[in-house]
């Protein structure tokens, strides 16, 4: 591949580098190990959700229910920790619940042929209602048992100076990358997004793949919910509101097509980092949080247009 092609294929990466260079020129505090680790930690939750979202979007779907699933999983997990449930049991149960909720919208999409947008919008609304019923609208503390302390480490701990959420996100990324690039399942995900009818006629069990894809998204949302709850030592009924938008933004910033069939999980990771760096930079630059929204939107627009242009010109 020539240099031009390399740049064209990696627009998101160059965008991230450019962004970081610009911010570091502005503020000497940006490019420090502490701040960079901080960005990684803040990014990890969105990155984990966005990885699940990548699977869904690659099949030409969308998952709006991730924020609600995150909140419900967090609430269930907090209440289990609060009654001294063994950590591993609490974690596995929570992730299983997330997968089951994801599978519920997956079932509606795969077997009833409802559009993913609608199916997951319904799931988003209903699961959020479930959260409010379950928590009675109040935060659930993780309690005072010893297990709560070990639980906190998942969100707030460090291993060799690296925040635990960053390690979890990195592991999740490696697994997702492997699955998408080196397994039959990953190939089928791309094929379904590329052309569902072709995939079906080639012998792909389309419904089953979709089911697993939405379950994966739900499970990863639950994992993000665990990290958030652990760090805050409590589950908030309003947790995860609008998280689906950041996750979708990360996927799209990473160059994955909303039409399905094209994109890379590496791109999603970079997309999540761009959003993370941007949030951090706007804070460092002391931009008012009102303006931050506008700036974020503008950067996303810029990135997507640049990516779209480079792809159009490569034809």
């Amino acid at each position, binding site marked *: 591949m020539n240099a031009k092609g390399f740049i064209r294929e990696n627009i998101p990466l160059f965008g991230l580098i450019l962004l970081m260079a610009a911010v570091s020129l502005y503020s000497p505090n940006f490019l420090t190990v502490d701040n960079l680790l901080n960005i990684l930690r803040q990014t990890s939750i969105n990155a984990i959700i966005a990885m699940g979202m990548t699977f869904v979007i690659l099949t030409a779907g969308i998952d709006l229910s991730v924020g609600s699933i995150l909140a419900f999983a967090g609430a269930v997990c907090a209440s289990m920790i609060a009654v001294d449930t063994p950590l591993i049991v609490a974690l596995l149960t929570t992730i299983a619940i997330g997968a089951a909720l994801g599978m519920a919208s997956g079932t509606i999409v795969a077997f009833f042929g409802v559009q993913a947008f609608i199916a997951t919008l319904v799931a988003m609304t209903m699961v959020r209602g479930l959260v409010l019923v379950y928590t009675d609208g109040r935060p659930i503390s993780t309690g005072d048992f010893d297990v709560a302390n070990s639980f906190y480490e998942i969100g707030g701990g460090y291993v060799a100076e690296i925040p635990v959420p960053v390690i979890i996100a990195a592991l999740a990324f490696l697994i997702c990358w492997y699955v998408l690039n080196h*397994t*039959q399942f990953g190939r089928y995900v791309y094929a379904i997004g*590329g052309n569902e009818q*072709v995939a079906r*006629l*080639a*012998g792909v069990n389309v419904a089953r793949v979709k089911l697993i894809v939405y379950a994966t998204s739900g499970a990863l949302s639950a994992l993000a919910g665990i990290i958030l709850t652990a760090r805050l030592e409590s589950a908030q009924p309003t947790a995860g509101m609008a998280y689906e938008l950041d996750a979708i933004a990360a996927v799209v910033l990473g160059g994955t097509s909303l039409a399905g*069939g094209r994109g890379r999980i590496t791109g999603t990771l970079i997309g999540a980092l761009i959003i993370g760096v941007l949030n951090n930079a706007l804070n460092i630059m002391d931009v008012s949080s009102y303006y931050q929204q506008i700036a974020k939107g503008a950067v996303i627009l810029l990135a997507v247009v640049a990516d779209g242009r480079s792809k159009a010109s490569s034809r």
Partner: protein
Amino acid sequence: MTALLELEGVDKAFGTVRVLRGVDFTVQAGRVVALAGENGAGKSTLMKIITGIYHRDAGEMRLRGKEVQFTTARQSMDAGIAMIHQELNLLPALSVGENIFLGREPVDRMGRIRWSEIERETRHWLGTLQQQIDPWTETGKLSIAQQQMVEIARALSMQAEIIIMDEPTDALTDIETQILFDVVEKLRGEGKGLVFISHRLGEIFRMCDDVAVLRDGNMVHQGPVSEIDEDGLIRHMVGRELSDQYPYVPAEPADIRLKVDHLVAPGVRDVSFEARAGEVVGFAGLVGAGRTELGKAIYGANPAQSGSIEIDGQPTQLRSPRDGVSAGIGYVTEDRKLEGLIQAHGLRQNLSLSGLFRFTNTTGHIDKRAERAEVTRYINAFSVKTHGIDAVISQLSGGNQQKVSIAKSLVAQPRILILDEPTRGVDVGAKREIYQLINELKAEGLCILLLSSDMPELMGISDRILVMSNGLLTGSFARDEADQEAIMRCTVAGLEEARVG
């Protein structure tokens, strides 16, 4: 004779692949020029340069002597060039009239669409083509042939000086083809310049004044039709002699591979037949006779409602294409674009999709080295023209796509291969390659069901021909007793019965 459009020394490359090399091409007023050439010779690219969809890398294009450079399709349209596309570019949910005037609706000063004018004009142009179609009919409800006529009416309504027709007769019946020829005759009389792209050599000689032949991006011949004969034309197209269009090899049928007993499925009313290993069974019939439906029912894509299917003596339940693949059935669809290949994906991913299980271990890990090796083997064996194993499908020519489509089902190593219109939209040279391929597969002991509307092809390649009509088998012919007339009678047999019943 005035030249309406002249191209001189046109070059075009995609990446490192040179598709057109110094092409000269002239369209003259009051003449029909045929553009012939195999798939991948560069015909579509040349037409897309003329219509402003692609930009030429070098060379000149003059419209009535004036140098032009179109950067959008709109500019070429405004300059008086209309194109009738091979693939239907109509929006199925819109009415016929809306489609014909899409993007150039007549409006009044308030911006309101003048529907009465659309209706009148639509009626007029469809009338020119002798079509009694109501302008407000939903386009998707028309037959493919009718849609093609709407497409032609749209091009006519633009009243362009130059009209390019890309395989306009592929979807048409004989009657409609004749109507089109009459219209072309009239347009020629009005002094328009027409370009006619067709694989049907007979039509070229019947209708065109000049013929231009592209081969591998070079314009190898341009001159009056009267100065060349069919053999000469084919020689120019393929660059060699074509001895025998249908290279039949006698079969040595072995045991019964497939036994279909009283099969009932959507579009299939009651079908029983047997097919042997090492045998090509041809299926003749009109469009809508139920051949595609039968093929899909056997494959599992349209599961059977009753009846039974036995493969090598084993009763087999087929409820999905997945079942079909595991039972050893390969199905090559007639619609490569929508059902056959993922156009935006690479050659490798497409080729290995059906047979991916062969390279996958129990944990789901794909052995990419084995996959690449096998895919490369098929690309070479089928002489697919591509610049790499990861080339995007949409950049391949139709004939090459069709080879990939067949290869894709073979990667899964089927025992039975169902080919639905395997040579539709494929040029003479590639057709013959596909026939040879069918012979090789037959010799390897595959049981092949050949579903085709091309009668000479069916009679030339099949060991046995079964005829379908209205969801039933209405005839069965051994190779040496098959004659076209008898088959034709069978293709309409079920219709009579249906009308009576």
